[in-house]
């Protein structure tokens, strides 16, 4: 069987030779126009005068459009119809497109765009979380509140109450391939669009809407993206629409790719958050009550902010039993880029909040952070009958009985979902042992006792991440499989390839169902004309959903071949075996290719669609109750760091990870996701800093000012293993989703830095993210009591 094998990425041979095609590599027909946007330099204001004469007169310019020139309004929003392609009367953020230039080259279009004379009468801009709160500028009528129990009453009687607040910065996706699209006009007004998008169906939908044609008039194809990370879920809409509109108006092909600076300036990023907390706990660090207030900066348009903020609430528990809890979420509207999907989709911010709480609580009670975490873990499934009951003796039970292992902890999340697959007790125990956590904890303490300037820190943090789209209807997928008369197989499904290896994993499923080698399976570009009405490749759901849909399609064809061959041999079709390139039934044995040929000769259809919808999920996002997730994916990381207390400089010295990918479909690709996710998560929380100036302009708009991890920034020692146990839920070959969860392993890097800062003095360092050298110096000062 092909599944479970550590095979290379399906396009590896093309990638290493530079022959894999991205949008910008596709040869374009003659007469192709190249597009660029003219952007607002002002965060908020009224357009008073737009003079584009010089733009129109610039060399090579064919067409210049403002909102008024559009035949019909073009909207780019994935949710609320609040993102006009081009600003109408008001601009809402610095970077918003105001006009569109089409020229005979990319450079000509960009040069021309710089010649515009635009007068904007500025209006007061709402830039920060504080600005938005003061102006009550928000999405939805008020905050969303999820919770259970009576946290206020429990806080009033808690042995210790700890309070604090953390600022968590946003993150630029920095996919190496910037956003790009190419529109090719067809006969009769039809349009073909190539887009670097995680969501071809949305591109099709939005382009059709902008062109005023039914969706059947638009075909969208996505072979691959040069990275996505959530940044190509909705942010590619504007380019695809712009290209299609220009192509429709001129009947010429149109291509657009953002220059990197434009990409930073125009597109949305990870939401930055402020999370305030008040936690009641005992002297062992066992939490009795917790109140969170999450403030989420959404930017100028609604985009995907509501489900992102929901997911932050749904991960405010991470791996911990919170009996009395309230989570209040404020979705704040600001005059900045539209914060959008980014790997983890709010989950990482929610998880940083609770991990910060545990870090703070452990510091207050003077215990090791891992011990405090473990005593707050969800109860093991076997203890479910003890739903949240206090240990014998009630609240006065001895600390030992509580701290050893919180077997009396409940198993129900704050939103009412049973956690039936909790494996972190075992997973964390294994990681503590493999990473020599206890010994290294002592070694770090000994090092810190002897060194005044360099301080080390060590931290373990777990991940429990819910798998499924929280918008229940998105949990569906389709596939299309053809078997040709020579036994070769054409595979198509709704998932998109952005480097994660989805295509290879799904091809491994198809090859396994037919019992053939992977060379028999042709992986083909995602195409809205082959599989319609797909969901975005997002929420880590790609292989879960599309793997199942492909399995269904393959099995339909298998069953038809089985019935046909069994009839010939007077045997039971269910006895048929597809393995090792052969088909065996009732004493008959033949190569798969021959079976395909004979079935074709026998007038058997060898083409089938497949469909899958995730079972058992129900979710009420307003009440905050139900079972939003089919299952959870788990993992844990131990990170060791060193900081220089004079400069704030820091390094990750070592990282040890044990991650749960269920029964992995492809361990090599999954480990790649884990390593990449950890480094991206650690980058978010340590070195990647977005800076907007006081007028709302993003000043970190290129790699010169925005630093993502380089090869020299990754841990010197980096041990990554998979927790190789089948998924309890009935997923494709019992594998688990692996796209997003590992990003949150990077939280251990922030916690390790906090631990190092805490080694500098008696006070809690309250380290904010990203933990840049400046913030580390401030945290060191706080630890020493020199800063409030």
């Amino acid at each position, binding site marked *: 069987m092909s599944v479970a094998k550590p095979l290379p990425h399906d396009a590896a041979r093309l990638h290493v030779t530079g022959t894999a095609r991205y949008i910008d590599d596709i040869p374009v027909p003659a007469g192709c126009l190249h597009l660029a946007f003219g952007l607002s330099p002002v965060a908020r204001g009224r357009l008073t005068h737009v003079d584009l004469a010089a733009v129109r007169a610039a060399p090579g310019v064919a067409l210049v459009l403002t909102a008024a020139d559009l035949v019909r309004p073009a909207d780019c929003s994935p949710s609320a119809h609040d993102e006009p392609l081009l600003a109408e009367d008001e601009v809402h953020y610095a970077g918003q497109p105001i006009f569109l230039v089409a020229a005979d080259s990319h450079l000509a279009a960009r040069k021309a765009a710089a010649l515009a004379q635009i007068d904007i009468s500025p209006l007061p801009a709402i830039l920060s979380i504080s600005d938005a709160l003061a102006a009550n500028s928000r999405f939805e009528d008020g905050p969303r509140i999820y919770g259970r129990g009576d946290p206020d009453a429990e806080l009033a009687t808690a042995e210790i109450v700890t309070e604090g607040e953390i600022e968590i910065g946003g993150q630029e996706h920095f996919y190496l391939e910037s956003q790009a699209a190419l529109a090719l006009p067809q006969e009769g007004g039809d349009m073909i669009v190539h887009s670097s998008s995680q969501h071809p169906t949305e591109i099709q939908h939005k382009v059709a809407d902008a062109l005023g044609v039914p969706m059947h008039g638009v075909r969208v194809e996505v072979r691959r993206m040069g990275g996505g990370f959530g940044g190509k879920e909705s942010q590619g809409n504007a380019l695809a629409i712009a290209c299609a509109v220009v192509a429709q108006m001129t009947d010429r092909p149109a291509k657009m790719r953002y220059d990197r600076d434009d990409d930073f300036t125009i597109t949305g990023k990870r939401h930055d958050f402020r999370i305030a907390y008040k936690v009641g706990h005992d002297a062992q660090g066992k939490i009795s009550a917790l109140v969170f207030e999450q403030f989420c900066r959404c930017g100028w348009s609604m985009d995907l902010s509501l489900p992102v903020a929901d997911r932050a609430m749904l991960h405010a528990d991470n791996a911990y039993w919170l009996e009395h809890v309230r989570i209040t979420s404020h979705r704040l509207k600001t005059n900045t880029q539209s914060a959008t999907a980014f790997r983890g989709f709010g989950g990482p911010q929610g998880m940083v909040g609770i991990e910060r709480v545990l870090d703070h609580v452990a510091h207050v009670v003077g215990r090791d952070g891992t011990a405090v975490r473990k005593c707050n873990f969800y109860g093991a499934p076997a203890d479910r009958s003890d739903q949240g009951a206090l240990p014998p003796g009630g609240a006065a039970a001895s600390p030992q009985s509580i701290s050893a292992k919180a077997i009396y902890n409940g198993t129900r999340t704050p939103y009412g979902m049973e956690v039936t697959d909790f494996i972190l007790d075992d997973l964390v125990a294994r990681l503590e042992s493999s990473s020599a956590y206890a010994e290294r904890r002592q070694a770090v303490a000994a090092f810190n006792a002897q060194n005044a300037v360099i301080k080390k820190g060590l931290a373990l943090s777990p991940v429990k991440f819910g798998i499924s789209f929280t918008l229940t209807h998105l949990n569906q997928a389709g596939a299309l499989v053809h078997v040709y008369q020579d036994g070769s197989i054409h595979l198509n499904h709704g998932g998109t390839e952005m480097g994660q290896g989805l295509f290879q994993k799904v091809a491994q499923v198809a090859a396994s169902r037919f019992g053939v080698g992977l060379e028999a399976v042709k992986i083909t570009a995602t195409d809205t004309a082959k599989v319609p009405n797909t969901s975005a490749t997002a929420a880590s759901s790609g292989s879960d959903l599309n793997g199942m849909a492909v399995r269904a399609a393959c099995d339909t064809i298998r069953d038809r071949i089985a019935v046909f061959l069994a009839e010939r041999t007077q045997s039971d079709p269910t006895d048929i075996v597809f393995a090792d390139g052969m088909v065996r039934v009732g004493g008959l044995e033949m190569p798969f290719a021959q079976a395909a040929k004979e079935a074709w000769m026998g007038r058997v259809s060898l083409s089938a669609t497949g469909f899958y919808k995730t079972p058992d999920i129900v979710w009420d996002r307003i009440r905050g109750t139900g079972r939003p997730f089919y299952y959870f994916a788990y993992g844990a990381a131990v990170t060791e760091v060193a900081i220089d207390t004079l400069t704030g400089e820091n390094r990750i010295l070592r990282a040890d990870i044990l991650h749960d990918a269920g029964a992995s479909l492809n361990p090599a690709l999954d480990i790649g996701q884990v390593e990449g996710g950890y*480094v991206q998560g650690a980058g978010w929380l340590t070195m990647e800093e977005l800076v907007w100036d006081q007028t709302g302009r993003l000043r970190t708009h290129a790699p010169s000012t925005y630093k993502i991890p380089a090869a020299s920034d990754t841990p010197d020692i980096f041990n990554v293993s998979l927790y190789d146990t089948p998924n309890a839920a009935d997923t494709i070959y019992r594998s688990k989703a692996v796209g997003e969860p590992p990003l949150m392993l990077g939280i251990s890097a922030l916690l390790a830095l906090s631990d190092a800062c805490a080694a500098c003095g008696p006070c809690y360092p309250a380290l904010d993210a990203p933990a840049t050298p400046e913030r580390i110096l401030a945290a060191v000062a706080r630890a020493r009591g020199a800063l409030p």
Partner: protein
Amino acid sequence: MTKTHVSLTVNGEKKDVLVDPRELLIHTLREQMDITGPHIGCETSHCGACTVDLDGKSVKSCTMFTVQAEGADVTTIEGLGSPDGLHVLQEAFKENHGLQCGYCTPGMITRAHRLLQENPNPTEEEVRFGMAGNLCRCTGYQNIVKSVLAAASEMNSAKEAAE
């Protein structure tokens, strides 16, 4: 604007092009020569997706004017090997999963190729610092470093066998 005539060698082939004085080498390669292996990532010399080899040095082709390449000998990823005949480094990146989305890969391998000529037997740390000018957003670099070290070891054994 007057165009300038430039002669250079690309992947062993003599090329004559007419370029604008301020045309960047990456644009000449991609748009005039259809050499699309080197990618455009940032156009400010930071990401390394456009890395080519020029007269024995790794060069970010997005921050060099084509006119500066007059008479130069340029090697791109296409000059290292082909899908049917992979270079040792290309094979190593494929087998060691040194790529995910693949966008950085051509520049990464081109840089690694030069690094291994500058230092045929690098330590892991030397690889990490030697490759630090090429960004990858997907892999966390672990498998990239592994790929470069595997190729170095393979190339060294081949050299020993030949001696």
